């Protein structure tokens, strides 16, 4: 393959990755549930795009598979499933986080800095897209923060999924050819099944507790 192509690919990846980061921050401050879901879909789309770029740059066909799977699964199927769930158990759209918007912005910023600090000494990965590792870690940490900061079950699931996006970003961009195919597919289906299971649980919880507020689930202690 020709160096310039790699160059462009790498810049592209960096760009897309940073977009993912932006979306993540939007997620952190956005308070409408459905919008959250859509944002997640968008983020996944970017992820797919990155996958496509990597696949093109290295002509590795199985990374295309990953891209396709991501589009099918995370861009269309999961958001659709989640929105349906939201509609089924008509929960109000408003998300009331524990930490208010400015504070959460600050925290996310701090986490980003931390991620860069952590990723700095690792030099052996400057193959494709600079700083993708940092972005991945940021996605992970901010996703984690979202998970803590959200009250409702579904939003926590969403946060978990964004974390998963970060992981996939690392999987695609850091490892020259993506993971071995079997692993990719396995992970993908695991995620899908996980969301199914979560859906089932959310549904059952809804009908037993007549509420989606996870912070009400505190009967078991000590």
């Amino acid at each position: 393959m020709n160096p310039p192509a790699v160059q462009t690919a790498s810049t592209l990846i960096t760009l897309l990755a940073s977009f993912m980061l932006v979306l993540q921050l939007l997620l952190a401050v956005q308070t409408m549930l459905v919008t959250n879901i859509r944002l997640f879909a968008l983020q996944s789309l970017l992820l797919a795009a990155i996958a496509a770029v990597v696949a093109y740059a290295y002509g590795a066909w199985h990374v295309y598979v990953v891209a396709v799977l991501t589009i099918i699964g995370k861009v269309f199927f999961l958001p659709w499933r989640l929105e349906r769930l939201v509609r089924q158990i008509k929960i109000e759209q408003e998300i009331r986080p524990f930490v208010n918007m400015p504070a959460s912005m600050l925290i996310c910023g701090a986490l980003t800095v931390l991620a860069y600090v952590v990723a700095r000494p690792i030099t052996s990965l400057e193959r494709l897209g600079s700083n993708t590792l940092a972005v991945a870690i940021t996605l992970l940490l901010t996703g984690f923060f979202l998970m803590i900061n959200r009250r409702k079950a579904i939003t926590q699931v969403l946060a978990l999924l964004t974390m998963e996006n970060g992981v996939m970003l690392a999987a695609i961009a850091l490892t020259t050819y993506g993971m071995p195919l079997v692993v990719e597919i396995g992970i993908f289906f695991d995620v899908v099944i996980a969301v199914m299971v979560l859906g089932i649980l959310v549904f059952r919880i809804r009908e037993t507790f007549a509420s989606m507020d996870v912070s009400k689930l505190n009967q078991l202690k000590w």
Partner: protein
Amino acid sequence: MLLTFILGVPLAAGLLCLFARPRRLVEILNLGGFAIVLMLGIKLFHTVLAVPGSARTECGEFLRADALSAWMVLLISAVSLATSLYAVSYFRRDLAGGVVSERRWREFYVLTPLFATGMLLVVLANNLGVMWIAVEATALSSVLLVALYNRQNSLEAAWKYVMLGGLGLVLALFGTILTYAAAIVPPRSEMASFNWSSLQAMAPHIDQHLMTLAFIFVLVGYGTKAGLAPMHTWLPDAHSEAPSPTSAMLSGVSLKIALYALLRFHILTSACLGSGLSCHLLLGFGLFSMLLAGPFILMQKNLKRMLAYSSLEHVGLICAAVGMNAPLTVFGAMLHMGCHALTKPVLFFAAGNIHQQYHTLEFRRIGSGLAGAMPATALLLGLAAVAVCGLPPFGLFVSELTVIAGGFTSQQSWVSVVILASLIVVFCGVLNKFSGMLLGPGKGGAPRETISISNVAAMGLPLGALLFFTVRLPDSLWQLMNQAAGIIRGSP
């Protein structure tokens, strides 16, 4: 084809249970399946032992079994067998009492073999990615098992389990990927293999920073699944709210499976960075878990939660023992895994019987004088408690003392002292609660328990086995554990 069979048999059993109509057939499918797995497991460890230090691979290096995996296979199959044996009488009573519906009952018999298959795949997978997938699979199957009773509490427990477990697994996945990324050393730019065998071979050349980062994520991730404090918070909920057979499997093996996954990375890391970092982290988390378990057990109000916390303590002990990284301690850890796997299920089974008798697990409501009301259960519970407190003549005494002695020989006396102290604290709690529950005057007019042979067998056989192996440990088993310990200490 041995490994394939070991994986295939329970999978097949599980799937068949979907369609098999008559209840008895379903039960027999489970029992038979696990019995076969156990036999295969025994055959496996003999074949592994045949050539010391060797590993058996199948399906083009996709499956791989060395001494460590073989040891784990033995534990998994033994516990699953006991569980399925106990489940028969347990769920018959539940069905009779209308506690579970036919559908949920079938759910259990389908999911349990899948759960077991997942665990077997964890220990047999050669590819670390596949190992992660398998762990995730065990998590998902066990979540539904935890939520089986569909009560408020069990749903809450399941929710916490799946959220925290899922989170941990995402972190673990990240760590895994980082490891993979680290394993791609620039000169070779073609598709790297993600197989354990090759990784271990190239460990010394791995980028150290990246490996450290990876190990941290893996530690937190799999640590959550293995219930190391402070990531253990889901453990008491899930283990106490699940149906007793599931609790037995969760406490008996599933924790150790997550630990196994963690240990694989520990081996890699110490091969790459030297044993310093990972050992110290393991030691720290292990000791913290042990120390944290004490107060909760002292103040515990609920039988199964107490058992769960005792599992936390034992996992902590194993972890710390590996962290001490002396020949004696690591061997002790292996031994301890075995003994604990044989003991803890019995305790949970007995707890299940008590729950079905009194419809509560609160010590206060159960009251006293169990020895009179349910003699068989009380006796076995008492024996198992003696065992789990690390008193002779049961094996945990040997394993714990081995670990502690190892600490003294490797100039880590203070660790051993801490371990001793926390063991004593835990003992005080358990003794206090159990003597209050088992002894004393029985409640007037409480119905005497009706207990089936299979039930007693399910509790008695593991204890018998433990006692037997304590008095007479076959040389082959000793070899196996020794080699497993060797693998963990990085001698291929």
